């Protein structure tokens, strides 16, 4: 712009009476408009849901070579966990085998998923692979945040012959498959995560307490209630102090529902939702579900810990280890870790827990799995890592030398070294083998899982505090019906 043009601009704007207020208003509007475009895009507005499309796996050709991605770095977002500790202890073998460097960022579980959600939402691909559970697939899968791993598994140029996907327990592989239709069962042709380690849910109990009180592990839900009650009433006179009957989770979060509660709920033949005309119908308020939930809440109130509404897995399992609780209905490995260096060490035994009226041992599970970021620009190297981390080689090492339990591969779970290691835990292996065939995800897959289960936990707390079970669960079902179908 020339000097004359400058003068003209000043004169003309002055002539139009451009006030300071008006100039600021124009500048502010322009700035906001200009800035909002990239920010809105970064926040997801105007973006597109991920589509599976052509997989990057199809570009991999030739014979498989572990060294193909030598010199690359795979960035991992991991939860602080014994499984991650085992991986870190074994990473040198992977790096020597492939020439790939692992960059691992770890976060505690309390904020791990917040971090993962924000990372995936950004679609920046800052991490190539990460830990997740089956329920997270229902949230992260539909928007296209997850890479479908099935094309990678199927491509022999990309996958080592020794990977053997059929070696995984089938229910664990199925847990990572879904077609993203609310209410549709798990399974299908798309694999959104690979099983890495998992927990089935069983009852762990104090042998010495049961022996002294002349009790045996409960075979039915009513027996469980009676056994817990008997322990609470008799423990003190038998020399076990203020020991209470049964520890289960009770805090207001989704994780309260999925272990013991959902396992027993499923064994009673109950479901969370039913699909009717394409709509999810909450079933938590069916007469049978109301009766079961009421009994569960009363069992906890009569024979559970004081302060139950703040109980997470940590408090529940710690009470077993500290000798405050005689039974724990939760993850088998939560109790396993209490069998070392605690007052209860060596006194614990495992049992599948009560059967349903028809003898069912349906059991819910939690799977720590590994997934690949759909936004990663390093997918081949990431897949090299994923297949190694879920390989027999690493998992055998992690399960026998470290604390990577339960094993997700049948070959590892059945190996003499693994069984020998677990033999110190009374009936751990036998219990695992008994419940494993019926261990699966017992929830109905749907995108509002965390809302539904957190609200369910809140309702359970209200019933525990004396609210009418039928009315509370009716309200829960009414509220959820709108939200899960919205």
């Amino acid at each position, binding site marked *: 712009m020339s000097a004359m043009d400058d003068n003209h601009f000043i004169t003309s704007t002055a002539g139009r009476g451009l006030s300071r207020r008006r100039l600021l208003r124009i500048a502010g509007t322009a700035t906001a408009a200009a800035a909002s475009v990239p920010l809105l895009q970064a926040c997801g507005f105007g973006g597109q849901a991920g589509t599976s499309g052509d997989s990057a796996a199809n570009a991999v050709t030739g014979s498989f070579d572990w060294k193909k991605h030598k010199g690359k770095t795979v960035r991992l977002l991991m939860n602080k966990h014994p499984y991650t500790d085992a991986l870190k202890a074994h990473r040198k073998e992977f790096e020597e085998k492939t020439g790939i460097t692992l960059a691992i960022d770890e976060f505690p579980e309390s904020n791990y998923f917040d971090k993962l959600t924000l990372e995936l939402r950004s679609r920046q691909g800052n991490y190539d692979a990460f830990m997740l559970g089956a329920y997270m697939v229902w949230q992260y899968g539909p928007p296209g945040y997850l890479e479908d791993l099935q094309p990678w598994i199927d491509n022999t140029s990309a996958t080592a012959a020794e990977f053997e996907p059929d070696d995984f327990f089938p229910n664990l592989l199925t847990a990572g498959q879904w077609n993203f239709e609310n209410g549709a069962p798990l399974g299908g042709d798309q694999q959104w995560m690979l099983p890495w380690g998992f927990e089935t849910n069983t009852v762990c109990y104090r042998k010495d307490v049961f022996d002294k009180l002349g009790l045996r592990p409960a075979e039915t839900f009513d027996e469980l209630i009676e056994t817990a009650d008997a322990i609470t009433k008799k423990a003190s006179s038998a020399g076990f102090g203020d020991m209470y009957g049964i520890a289960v989770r009770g805090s207001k979060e989704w994780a309260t529902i999925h272990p013991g509660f959902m396992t027993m709920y499923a064994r009673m033949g109950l479901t969370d939702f039913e699909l009717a005309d394409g709509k999810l119908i909450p079933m938590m308020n069916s007469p049978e579900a109301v009766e079961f939930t009421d009994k569960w809440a009363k069992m906890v109130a009569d024979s559970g810990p004081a302060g139950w509404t703040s109980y997470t897995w940590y408090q529940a399992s710690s009470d077993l280890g500290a000798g405050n609780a005689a039974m724990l209905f939760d993850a088998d490995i939560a109790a396993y870790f209490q069998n070392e260096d605690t007052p209860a060490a060596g006194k614990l035994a495992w049992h599948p827990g009560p059967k349903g009226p028809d003898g069912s041992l349906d059991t819910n599970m939690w799977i720590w799995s590994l997934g690949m970021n759909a936004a990663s620009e390093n997918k081949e190297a990431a897949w090299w890592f994923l297949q190694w981390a879920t390989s027999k080689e690493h998992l055998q090492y992690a399960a026998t030398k470290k604390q990577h339990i339960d094993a997700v591969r049948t070959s590892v779970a059945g190996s003499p070294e693994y069984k020998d290691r677990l033999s110190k835990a009374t009936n751990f292996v036998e219990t695992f083998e008994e419940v494993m065939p019926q261990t699966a995800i017992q929830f109905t897959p749907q995108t509002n899982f965390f809302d539904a289960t957190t609200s369910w936990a809140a309702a359970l*707390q209200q019933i525990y505090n004396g609210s009418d079970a039928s009315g509370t669960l009716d309200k829960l079902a009414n509220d959820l019906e709108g939200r899960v179908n919205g």
Partner: protein
Amino acid sequence: MSDDPLAGSRGGTATAETPPPDGAGRDNQPAPLAGAPRVSRRRKALRPYLLSVPAVLLCAGILYPFFLGVSYTFFDFSAANPAPDAVGFDNFTTILGSDAFWTSVRVTLTFALSATVLETVLGVGVALLLNRSSLVGKLFERVLIVPLMVAPILAAIMWKLLLLPEVGWVRPIAQFFGVNDYNGTDSPVMAMVWAVIVDAWIFTPFVAIIALAGLRSLPKSPFEASAVDGAGWWLTFRKLTLPMLWPYLLVAVIFRLMDNLKMFDVIFGLTSGGPGDATTTLQISAYLEAISYARYSRGLTYMFLLWLLVFVISMILVKYLRRIQDRAAGV
């Protein structure tokens, strides 16, 4: 030398070169210094706008995220729906029509008012004790600020452990005093009571420090006069100390009430909003919606409604504070 005694301050040291006031200053501006570079008309015209740039940037930095957040409330933005559609006021009608929202409003107000009243009463009490210059008072003054140095979430976790019946210290103390059915935060009433107590444990020192500063700035003569007249402690406190201290206290009350209306970490760390929805404040509802359930627009709608509540209440209190300050100043 000019006869005008203020000539130096108006026009600097310039004398002979300084043009007469009516010549230089159509805008009544001071005359330029001798030898100072001439400033073009264009630069002069731009100067006000350049000077306002920092303020504009500051305002933009504050207002832009706010209005961006507000704009999200008109979409159905969630993790499951990364390409959201505009939904108008649907988020507002859904939330305002739900029982959960009004329960959250009730819980938020109950917590905020209870905690603020408790902190104010205790804060004034502590300040009155500290205002006496005893050795214990001086020592206590040093440690008073310690709870404020603890991050609220850490304080909440610490108290959560203390309150756990199986491992905490509170149950044995309760049993010592004959309370045998202590259940920590299990019941809705006790969950709220403990949340208020923990909040008061952290923030009472804040009120006490402000009240103490106010007490020490009060004039001594009215108190000496009342002592001469034989007024008792309670009468002096009620008729003299409290009215004179009130403008200071109100500042603390405004801060604490606004903060308590938005309180998250203390309650979430202690009860996660439970049992049931007994301690689910608006802030916790917003967190659950936006972070736990990844329904960002719903979470932001909760946040916006909370902001409205805080804004209205704080405006009322600030107006009241001004009136009191004006009255104190004799305006």
